[in-house]
């Protein structure tokens, strides 16, 4: 046990976590040349393409240092706020963390939020100044920033480059020298923490865990504490680039478990694994059922594909337990599902995976948060509204509450004014402003979660010219003056376009919605009036003029293939459209409310 080190890498997005992980694997000879690939741990196609880590990953490296053999377990975590619970559980599985800071970008919001998580779990922090090879790197200043943040000595900050491999030896040395070996009682009853699970078509769910006490043996009868289910450990082992089956995984180590479980829902990240006969009395603290934050309808473009969509969603849920859904129906879109997601990125990922892995063409409706409505009849009983259409008749509503978050934004002093205006426009209330350095400011706001769903990230990026980072955590429900904004196309209300918004913004958003829809809905052979309404009152209107001319004059030798391709593209685009009444609506229109400022 004294030669095991468990550590994770925490960083703001794009500071080079996955790249540095690749270098560590190279340096320790954990991958052969043939297996080498950029961002090796990002195994999903989607992760590689987008350069983001969606799932946690773990890998074991062997390393000889001063004549002794060490086992280093590296846990790579997603950087995005949508997955912060997964991050927190991965952190809980470690004794140390490499805190990576981009030498050009310095400390960002997720650097800090992830650092706090690590400190809460008493991890040894190894600060790493990464990307020192960049011409724009600013090593002195950023080192100062890190020293200020951690209260460490400048010499403790390791200079490195994931690109060139510079400093990797120093990092490994620090992992061994500075991170404590795991503690724990090998003879105590089994106590292990589940920090992730992966679905494998052939083998069912693979559970990733860290043993804190005791050991887990092949064939052992075990129990998952939170779900209160029993299994046999059909196979256990450690995680090299491929899995290595073992007779047992011992105290302090990280490994995988296969039990024949088929659905991801049964394996909850944060849960404790223990022995069935001799259960532990210490469960790993911090278990939570992850709650979806954002809800949206997912509908098949072709109504006949409903059952197939259900099958696909069920399969997706097998390997993504954080996806929840239940059937719903919409007057405009027919049968579909109301789905809960961890956040907007998660929602996008699910939509993309449905299309890529299951070949489904779907329409996603305007996302919303989960509201609590209280009626005059039962003013103490919350009625949960996950879909704007479920909001009871306004005359019977006593009040509506919406979820609030604490938002942390780090930006340059120059942009404080802009960021402040944006947050205030988004109904934020500033609660703190701290100068981290003379240049860099941390702003803290309380604001409605719904507002960050609505084009917040993009606007923040714009107003700060990219120099702002953002993180948030939920802080509970607050009463708000909310109304439902309805959209009518051709005088027919389209329920899938409704949104709950603050009453004071109704006029403004209604107008912008109409304008945006006019832009997004292609002209058809008749005029299409678009109206925005609150209750019975029409607050804005636009008309999409009928298409009178849809033919290009010339079609000679040079025009033919260009034109064919154009019309083919047009037809493909139409495949993604949904006919509501006699109006064809493209997918983007359902998300129009998110892009009002583009």
């Amino acid at each position, binding site marked *: 046990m004294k030669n095991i080190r468990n550590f994770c890498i925490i960083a703001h997005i794009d500071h080079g976590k996955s790249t540095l992980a690749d270098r560590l694997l190279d340096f320790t000879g954990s991958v052969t040349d043939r297996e080498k690939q950029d961002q090796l741990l990002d195994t999903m196609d989607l992760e590689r393409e987008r350069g983001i880590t969606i799932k946690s990953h773990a890998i074991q490296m062997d390393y000889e240092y001063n004549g002794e053999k060490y086992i280093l377990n590296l846990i790579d975590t997603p950087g995005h706020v949508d997955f912060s619970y997964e991050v927190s559980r991965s952190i809980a599985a470690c004794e140390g963390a490499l805190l990576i800071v981009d030498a050009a970008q310095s400390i960002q919001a997720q650097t800090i939020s992830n650092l706090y998580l690590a400190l809460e779990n008493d991890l040894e922090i190894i600060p790493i100044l990464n990307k020192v090879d960049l011409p724009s790197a600013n090593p002195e200043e950023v080192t100062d920033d890190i020293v200020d943040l951690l209260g460490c000595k400048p010499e403790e900050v390791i200079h490195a480059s994931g690109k060139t491999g510079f400093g990797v030896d120093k990092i490994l040395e620090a992992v061994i020298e500075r991170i404590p070996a795991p503690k724990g009682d090998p003879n105590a009853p089994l106590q292990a923490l589940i920090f992730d699970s992966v679905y494998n078509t052939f083998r069912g769910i693979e559970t990733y865990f860290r043993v804190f006490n005791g050991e887990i043996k092949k064939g052992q009868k075990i129990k998952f504490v939170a779900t209160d289910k029993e299994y046999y450990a059909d196979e256990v082992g450690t995680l090299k680039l491929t899995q290595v089956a073992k007779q047992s995984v011992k105290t302090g180590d990280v490994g995988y478990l296969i039990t024949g479980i088929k659905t991801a829902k049964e394996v909850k990240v944060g849960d404790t694994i223990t022995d069935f006969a001799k259960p532990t009395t210490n469960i790993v603290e911090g278990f939570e059922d992850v709650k979806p934050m954002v809800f949206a309808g997912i509908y098949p473009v072709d109504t006949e594909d409903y059952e197939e969509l259900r099958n696909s969603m069920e399969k997706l849920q097998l390997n993504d337990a954080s996806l929840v859904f239940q059937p719903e129906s919409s007057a405009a879109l027919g049968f579909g599902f109301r789905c809960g997601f961890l956040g907007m990125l998660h929602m996008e990922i699910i939509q993309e995976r449905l299309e890529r892995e299951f070949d489904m063409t779907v329409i996603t409706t305007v996302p919303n948060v989960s509201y609590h409505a209280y009626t005059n009849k039962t003013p103490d009983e919350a009625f949960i509204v996950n879909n704007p259409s479920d909001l009871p008749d306004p005359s019977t509503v006593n009040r509506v509450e919406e979820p609030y978050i604490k938002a942390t934004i780090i930006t340059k002093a120059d942009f404080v004014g802009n960021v402040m205006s944006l947050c205030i426009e988004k109904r934020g209330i500033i609660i703190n402003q701290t100068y981290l350095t003379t240049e860099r400011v941390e702003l803290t706001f309380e604001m409605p979660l719904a507002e960050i769903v609505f084009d917040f990230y993009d606007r923040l990026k714009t107003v700060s010219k990219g120099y702002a980072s953002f993180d948030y955590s939920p802080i509970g429900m607050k009463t708000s003056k909310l109304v439902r904004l309805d959209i009518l196309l051709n005088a027919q209300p389209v329920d899938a376009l409704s949104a709950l918004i603050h009453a004071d913004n109704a006029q403004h958003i209604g107008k912008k919605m109409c304008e945006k829809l006019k832009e997004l809905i292609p002209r058809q052979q008749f005029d299409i009036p678009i109206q925005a309404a609150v209750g019975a009152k029409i607050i804005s209107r636009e008309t999409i003029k009928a298409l009178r001319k*849809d033919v290009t004059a010339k079609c000679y030798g040079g025009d033919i293939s260009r034109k064919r391709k154009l*019309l083919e593209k047009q037809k493909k685009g139409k495949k993604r459209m949904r006919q509501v009444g006699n109006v064809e609506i493209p997918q983007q229109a359902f998300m129009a409310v998110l892009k009002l400022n583009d």
Partner: protein
Amino acid sequence: MAGIYIHIPFCKQACFYCDFHFSTSLKKKDELVQALVKELELRKDELKNETIETIYFGGGTPSLLTNEELKLLIDSVYKHYQVAENPEITLEANPDDLSKSVIIQLSESPINRLSIGIQSFFEDDLKNMNRAHSSDEAKKCLKEATKYFDNITIDLIYGIPNMSLEKWNKNLEMTFGFGVNHISSYALTVEPNTAMAMFIKKGTYPPMDEDLALQHFNYLIEKTNEQGFVHYEISNFGKPNYFSKHNTSYWQGKSYLGIGPSAHSFYKNERSWNVSNNTKYIKAIQNKTLPNTAEHLSIQDEYNEYIMTGLRTIWGVSLEKIEKDFGKTFVEHLKISAKKYINEGLLEVSHQKTIITTKKGKFLIDGIASELFMI
């Protein structure tokens, strides 16, 4: 049966709406003509077993070439290709190049068809589009040209913002007055990256008015019909026996060789096109290489093109041909997807054999064709 298109990439000045490939500097004209001759030679084997029925000088402005240059090019075609007995040889010409003496010279050359870019007989329209010719030149050249050529087509542009129906009517009456037997008439189109697109964006040129264009189009159909023209393709109107053979072959999927920068070629199921850059073109040809890109058409692509071009013509698309060339699934697909438009009166079935576009459908045919595509 095949055609040869020769692109002459030069113009005196750039019309505001035009995005064709041309240069307003004539410095490289000699070199380019040499390169065209060379390309004709380089590609002499491409149409081995085909007879050349049509030769078409397009542009740009082919009337910027001297009689000798035209002769050189025509001779090269005859030298390297098997040319039919009486080929149709068309020259696109701009009114400002067509003096009486030039017309006479041309009439004595093998060129037997003129395509004259009139666009409008009104001075303000011509100015607003930055045409190089005047209203007077337009009228004078037509008066002379009709004396020496029987096979003349003119280009007219309609749907010019603020052009009254009355003015459009005058353009048509004038055209009929000269006794031309063929008209190509295009709705003014805003092509991206043209001067006109920029003016409209800046607000110094009025935006297009579709209702006006539709009105002009319907009027055009009506008036040409009264005069005995057949509306045989969306933008083309010809008296019987005066249809453009060359352009018709594009719409009927026949083979053609495109010579010169930006020119497209089509043979069997391969389409290729030359670079749209005079210098690069000349250089490549001098090195005896073809500066082209090719694409292979899948059966689906060919079907889609047939639908797209067929529906623009009076011949429509033939169900028999589709069954024969593409197979049952394609016919079934077409029958099912066309139903909606037949019900709406935009398409119709003629003699159970062909699907053609109705008058009502003509101005919407791109969207309709797209819906009938096989994707």
